[in-house]
């Protein structure tokens, strides 16, 4: 049972990591990064490191997403060809 969840989490990490790069909308990329960070914290928990999982969930999914959103708000959205 735990192997199935582990494989699903790893596939989800790969999919979200690819989506962060391919996303055109910057706000959507920041929210996808939060989902990636959440899946990474579940992976840490499966690998028996709950201490690192709590730190990753708080800093990665909470604080760095807020920093990205504030930084995106301060800049202009311009297409680079």
């Amino acid at each position: 049972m735990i192997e199935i969840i582990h494989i699903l989490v790893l596939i989800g990490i790969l999919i979200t990591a690819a989506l962060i790069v391919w996303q055109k909308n910057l706000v959507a990329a920041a929210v996808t990064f939060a989902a990636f960070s959440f899946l990474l914290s579940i992976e840490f928990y499966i690998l028996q490191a709950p201490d690192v999982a709590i730190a990753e969930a708080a800093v990665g999914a909470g604080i760095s997403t807020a920093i990205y959103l504030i930084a995106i708000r301060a800049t202009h959205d311009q297409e680079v060809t």
Partner: protein
Amino acid sequence: MSDSLSKIIRTTADVMFLFITVFGFYIVLHGHLTPGGGFQGGAVIATGFILLIVAYKLEDFLGWFQKRTFQNCEMSGLVLFIGTALAAIPLGYLFFMNFLNGTGGLFGQAVPFGINPGFLNTAGTIPIMNIAVGIEVLGGLSIIILYMTTGIRSHEEGE
């Protein structure tokens, strides 16, 4: 953030702020028994404050909590940490010595032998240092976001 977000987001932030803060203080206080500790709990509490900063107007947030509050949190946490470490020297122990362990007072209960569920009133100075680190990280991480938001506000008004 010059304007507050929609009513759904503000209500959700109001409800979630209480639970996030209580969970963060739980992680800080049980740092010597369960996974987590000062840094993790402080980061969770700071996430609650950042949720309020993102959801509401900056003027509303500064009406509830001043910048001075978070600066005082950071300073008092650092002073409490180094004060606990230095308090062992006048008592005749080495620097960072766990002088409260096993004395029966505050956090001074001896750990019973064998398998037990874990008792909160143990471990000596380690919970005090966890609380100090928690207060310090809560002030530091909150004030990073607060100064970033304030800087963006002055940048937008300057244009």
